[in-house]
């Protein structure tokens, strides 16, 4: 009959108050777990999608909006930029790789992105089936798109104007699925990729041409063409200092850094996370007090028990251990249940999420969760230390003679 077993039995002998304490701790830990998992996953996703892109150049407007629309594909673009100017920037010595994007259409809410082969390079894309888009109106679709919209190679579909909605359908040309991407774990899973001239052609119905457009050719009709934005990978770290300033000062376009804007975005979300975090900490604190009151009250009833244990040979240290172990067991049980519940809840939230763009998963475990254990342990010790010290110090002769 070890001291730990005595603590354990004591917890079970008052199931209601023990359950209440465990629930409080579990609730607080659960919220903290969800916050921890969700915020890490969101920031990971933000980073994953902009990993190899150093800068986005687009029409003047909100830089955050430019990043949201051209990196995460979740907001409206800021406007268009002239292809000619974009091509000049692309040839700048600061630039290693430049990827043009032409947005504006969707199919069942999935964005159709007109771009060139550099897009494949910058996102390191691979096809699972079929091939990359080549001719006009050929598309390569993300793995989630194929899954969700049940599209196969050879299927055709009509794009609709706008980023969502299908009221204004471009019936003149049908897109054809030429390939399906392997799962990439970023936004490209949810995009339909095609070449830029397809997007242009959708919009100039009268100017239909039989031959292919090469977006890099200097054909005269390119003079007044426009694209949405340009993704840029720098040639050297020096570009960081020079290039954005050059774009912002000497052209009519703006340059926005995905890293900077993601950080800014995350710090905006962070305010909400902070509030919830304090709420969870408050719950944990209340739980700690509840465990303390529980132990303190039961210690009054148990002082005679503990004195009897001393007469049976238990040392002061053992009594201390029995009381503190009871507190730690309660809070650790709460912590473990809370972490498990947090994961389950997040998995549930993830499975009910509309957009698979930012789907959260409860099946990812983080090293930081160890801190939650440490916190549970600390709360247990904090709540039990005073009762334990009292058990240690108690005058058993006095307790026993007050029979």
């Amino acid at each position, binding site marked *: 009959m070890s001291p730990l077993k*005595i603590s354990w*039995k004591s917890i079970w002998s008052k199931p209601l108050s023990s359950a209440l304490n465990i629930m409080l701790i579990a609730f607080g830990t659960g919220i903290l777990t969800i916050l921890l998992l969700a915020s890490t996953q969101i920031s990971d996703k933000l980073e994953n999608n902009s990993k190899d892109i150093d800068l986005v150049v687009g029409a003047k407007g909100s830089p955050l909006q430019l990043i949201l629309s051209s990196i995460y594909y979740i907001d409206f673009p800021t406007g268009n930029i002239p292809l000619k100017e974009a091509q000049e920037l692309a040839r700048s010595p600061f630039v290693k790789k430049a990827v043009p994007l032409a947005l504006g259409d969707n199919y069942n809410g999935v964005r159709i992105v007109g771009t060139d082969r550099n897009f494949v390079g910058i996102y390191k894309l691979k096809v699972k089936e079929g091939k990359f888009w080549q001719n006009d109106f050929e598309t390569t679709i993300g793995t989630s798109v194929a899954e969700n919209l049940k599209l196969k190679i050879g299927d055709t579909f009509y794009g609709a104007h706008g980023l969502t909605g299908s009221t204004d359908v471009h019936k003149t040309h049908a897109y054809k699925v030429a390939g399906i991407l392997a799962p990439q774990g970023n936004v490209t899973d949810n995009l339909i990729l095609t070449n830029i001239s397809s997007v242009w052609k959708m919009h100039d119905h009268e100017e239909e041409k039989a031959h292919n457009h090469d977006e890099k050719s200097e054909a005269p009709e390119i003079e007044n063409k426009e694209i949405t934005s340009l993704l840029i990978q720098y040639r050297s770290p020096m570009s960081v200092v020079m290039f954005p300033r050059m774009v912002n000062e000497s052209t009519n376009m703006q340059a926005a850094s995905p890293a900077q804007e993601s950080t800014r975005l995350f710090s905006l979300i962070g305010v909400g996370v902070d509030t919830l975090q304090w709420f969870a900490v408050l719950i944990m604190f209340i739980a700690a007090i509840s465990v303390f009151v529980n132990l303190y009250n039961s210690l009054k009833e148990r002082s005679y*028990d503990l004195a009897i244990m001393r*007469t*049976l*040979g*238990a040392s002061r240290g053992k009594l201390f251990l029995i009381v503190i172990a009871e507190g730690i067991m309660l809070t650790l049980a709460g912590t473990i249940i809370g972490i498990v519940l947090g994961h389950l809840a997040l998995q549930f939230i993830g499975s009910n999420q509309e957009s698979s763009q930012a789907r959260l998963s409860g099946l990812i475990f983080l090293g930081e969760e160890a801190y939650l254990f440490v916190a549970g342990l600390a709360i247990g010790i904090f709540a039990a230390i005073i009762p334990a010290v009292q058990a240690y110090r108690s005058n058993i*002769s006095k307790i*026993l003679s007050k029979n």
Partner: protein
Amino acid sequence: MIALNAVSHNYQNGHKIGFKDWQVDDGSQWLLLGASGSGKTTLLHILTGILKPQQGSVIIDGTSIYDLSSKDLDQFRGRNIGIIFQRPHLIKSLSIKENLVMAQSFANLPTDLNRVKEVLTSLGIADKKNAYPSELSHGQLQRVSIARAVINRPTLLIADEPTSSLDDKNAAAVLELLIDQSGINQATLIVATHDKRVKDAFTNTYELS
């Protein structure tokens, strides 16, 4: 052998009780008599190492118990002294068996379920082994507390008014069990009481004035 040498105790409020010297031979059975408030409980606490007296020494089997460290004294008590209180007090969250096993493990002795069974059988409550204290009658609980006191085969068995809350029949039975158990376990027995029903059973008496 137990020896009480020049012991006196001052309570913090200034109340002072002196005890005359006392030699208790191994295996002898003693009655500790005294009016209410004369200091019986105080003396038993001093004898069992629960209350350190201001003056004097207590020697049990050659060990001056108040010269031991707190931890060693607890250990010594667990191994060598069995105590029975006026009211039986068991740990409510543990079964009868577990209460006895707990006494073995606090004395740092290995768990011995045969011994548990043997003691409970000799006290006639073997069938209550897996019951919880709340399921037993007062008289049965007093037997369990005797079982707990003798489980580690102590050299000294001490009872503080073990019969005062029991009716005549139970009081006689408990007294008989105490005398029996001290005989079976070859333990010295000291019973403090002001219960007249107990007096006839003992030859040795130590009186407090």
